[in-house]
């Protein structure tokens, strides 16, 4: 299965692809090039261009979109009820962009609609990879932590814990997220239970493919 991953960094792609393969129980293929965006606004703003490109000009079967929540509100199931979209919620932002783009795309003969899964890491993707080994790494802890778990400093602490230092070389970062992603694929229910609103919808959508 050919799956494109669209995120903010190559770390996202490395790690998310392992998780996707774990959820599907098979190895996926990547598209011919790597998709990147310059930070959160660019993920949302360029998602329509990426999806349009994949639909018309590639044989990609699926797209996974991933972003960090930073300090934005946690996605809630009721956001998906008609009229309840939360404009500050990043997962809502992605789902709206996906819906609007899919409505616009004309059918291409012989091409099935691209399967899409979106996820938001709360507050940053490093939290997912600390899941089960660091008590701060869960949506519940983040909600209860209040101001102490908001801001760039907290996200830096998570990165320091995962990578061992503030300025770890990229090779070490990639090795660490690979190791942790492989650990998590042994029992994905752990990630789903600790991150039900950010990882849960991603896993649910992928299982529906």
């Amino acid at each position, binding site marked *: 299965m050919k799956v494109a991953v*669209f995120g903010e960094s*190559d770390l996202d792609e490395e790690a998310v692809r392992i998780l996707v393969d774990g959820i599907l129980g098979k190895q996926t293929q990547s598209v011919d*090039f*790597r*998709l*990147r*965006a*310059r930070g959160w606004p*660019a993920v949302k*703003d*360029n998602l*329509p*261009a*990426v999806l*349009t*490109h*994949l639909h*018309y*000009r590639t044989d990609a079967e699926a797209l996974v979109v991933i972003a960090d929540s930073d300090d934005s509100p946690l996605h809630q199931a009721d956001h998906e009820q008609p009229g309840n979209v939360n404009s500050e919620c990043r997962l809502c932002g992605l789902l709206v962009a996906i819906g609007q783009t899919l409505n*616009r795309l004309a059918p291409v003969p012989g091409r099935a609609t691209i399967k899409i899964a979106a996820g938001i890491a709360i507050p940053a993707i490093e939290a997912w990879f600390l899941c089960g080994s660091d008590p701060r790494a869960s949506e519940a802890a983040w909600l209860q932590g209040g101001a102490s778990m908001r801001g760039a400093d907290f996200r830096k602490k998570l990165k320091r814990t995962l990578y061992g230092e503030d300025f770890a070389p990229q090779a070490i970062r990639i090795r660490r997220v690979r190791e942790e992603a492989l650990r998590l694929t042994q029992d994905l229910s752990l990630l789903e239970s600790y991150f039900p609103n950010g990882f849960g919808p991603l896993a649910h959508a992928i299982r529906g493919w």
Partner: protein
Amino acid sequence: MIKSVQFKNFKALRDTTLPLERFTLIVGPNGSGKSTALQALRAISNAGEIDFNRVITTGQRFSAENFVEITLHLGWPYEGSAYGIRWSEAGVSGPHKGPLAAMDQEARNLLSRDLERIRIYSFDAQAIAAPVPLVPNVELTPNGHNLAGVLDQLRDQDHERFEALNEALGLWLPEFDRILFETPQPGTRSILLRTRRGQHKIAATDLSQGSLMALAMLTLAYLPNPPSVVCLEEPDRGIHPRLLRDVQEALYRLSFPESYSEEREPVQVIATTHSPYLLDLYRDHPEQVVIANKTEEGTKFERLSEQPYIEEILRDSHLGDVWYTGVLGGVPAHL
């Protein structure tokens, strides 16, 4: 005007064609052949100076196709003509293509003059700032050296243009209001910029890299007799992103003189960039953007406007951002 350049076995450009407009902006990853394409244009007007063994694509030298060929497909006023040069172990041959023979002598002379006036620039701040000896008919060198001489000449020979250049400089870099000169040694010139507040004189060597780049680009744009083709490497280098529209305007002044009340022939401009911010400015002119892609068969050039579904893909997005995502190509393959 050159409508396209066809390459055979020229360094990384093994078999590809670069489509051109009056203004063309090439984007692509490092090592994708953008600079090589510009060098090729210079090579065609200095065919005798090219060392065949240094320019033939690696691996082609001992193949059946052991030659290098660059062909210009021409537009107005040479519509339908082509001009090609071939290099091989045996030497240089050409021009060898197209209905050049049908051209009258006047047109051939004109073409020959236009080809000689192709210039490639990759500006360097130190070279721009350096004092220069005063010699007649001085022109900018590829790295921007001789700027003081060129400006001194412009002041003496076309005062109106020199004043217009001062005005444009004041809009671009509002802290300055005038270009001045000094004579560090007899027979030499160097540049000073005068500050608007306080009328202080700042030596070129004390100016920022961006200010010097801006001055060199503006000078090019205000030359009374600019080159026929200007190839410019990274005109955004050292320039603040908010000033990139001024860069675009300076280059458009060369390419579209009629829009700037200039009474001279258009200059064909070919620029390269890695800046998504500069690229953003060409959102409405995808025909002016060429994507350079590294492939297993060598570099391939593609005009952005010719990509399928490009209008739908760009839609409401910033062109630079969409390019950065990778969906347009022209990005490093491994990152």
